[in-house]
């Protein structure tokens, strides 16, 4: 069965510091991996995805994520956090067979000035 785990409910970083939001997954076949962000009072917005190719994927707002097949991880990263990055982040996985997205439980990112 497909599953996604985001082990941290909340991540706190200081503005200007690098940030990492963790995600591990379990899926049969080749994974399709996504990160979504939900800002306060907005619906879910797509950030980036990994389908195939380069393990380092660059997305919106300066975010990137690294696909690690051996560790079944897809951690979200940003070299220098902004206060405006504070939001709820969801990792999601599917495979080419089902097409159904499975979401992690979400991680709240708090960036303090």
């Amino acid at each position, binding site marked *: 069965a497909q599953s996604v785990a985001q082990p941290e409910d909340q991540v706190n970083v200081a503005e200007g510091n690098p940030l990492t939001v963790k995600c591990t997954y379990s899926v049969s076949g080749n994974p399709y991996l996504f990160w979504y962000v939900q800002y306060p009072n907005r619906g*879910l917005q797509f950030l980036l995805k990994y389908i195939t190719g380069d393990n380092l994927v660059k997305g919106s707002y300066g975010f990137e994520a690294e696909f690690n097949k051996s560790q079944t991880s897809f951690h979200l990263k940003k070299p220098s956090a902004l206060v405006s990055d504070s939001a709820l982040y969801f990792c999601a996985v599917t495979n080419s067979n089902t097409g159904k997205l499975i979401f992690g439980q979400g991680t709240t990112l708090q960036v303090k000035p």
Partner: protein
Amino acid sequence: EADIYQTPRYLVIGTGKKITLECSQTMGHDKMYWYQQDPGMELHLIHYSYGVNSTEKGDLSSESTVSRIRTEHFPLTLESARPSHTSQYLCASTRTGTGVEKLFFGSGTQLSVL
């Protein structure tokens, strides 16, 4: 266990038909959303609502319309279905202001327009 329901689960329909996808939640959530997703691809927000009589269009342009006459009900309507509308439609809800606003998703409606 999330109490958000979508019906039908699957729908195959001919071009030109009017359809309504149902979404209901029993959690008293004020915010509700409709997302569209093609297989293996990212979700796109097409409509959202922050309460009764409040509806807004999302990030992806859609020919569908929505209504929010009751808190628990957020149906999506296509007046004249076309093959380009073939997709999965996901409904979600959450409650404002209880710390982390985590989304609860329905199981989705897979729509195929022939």
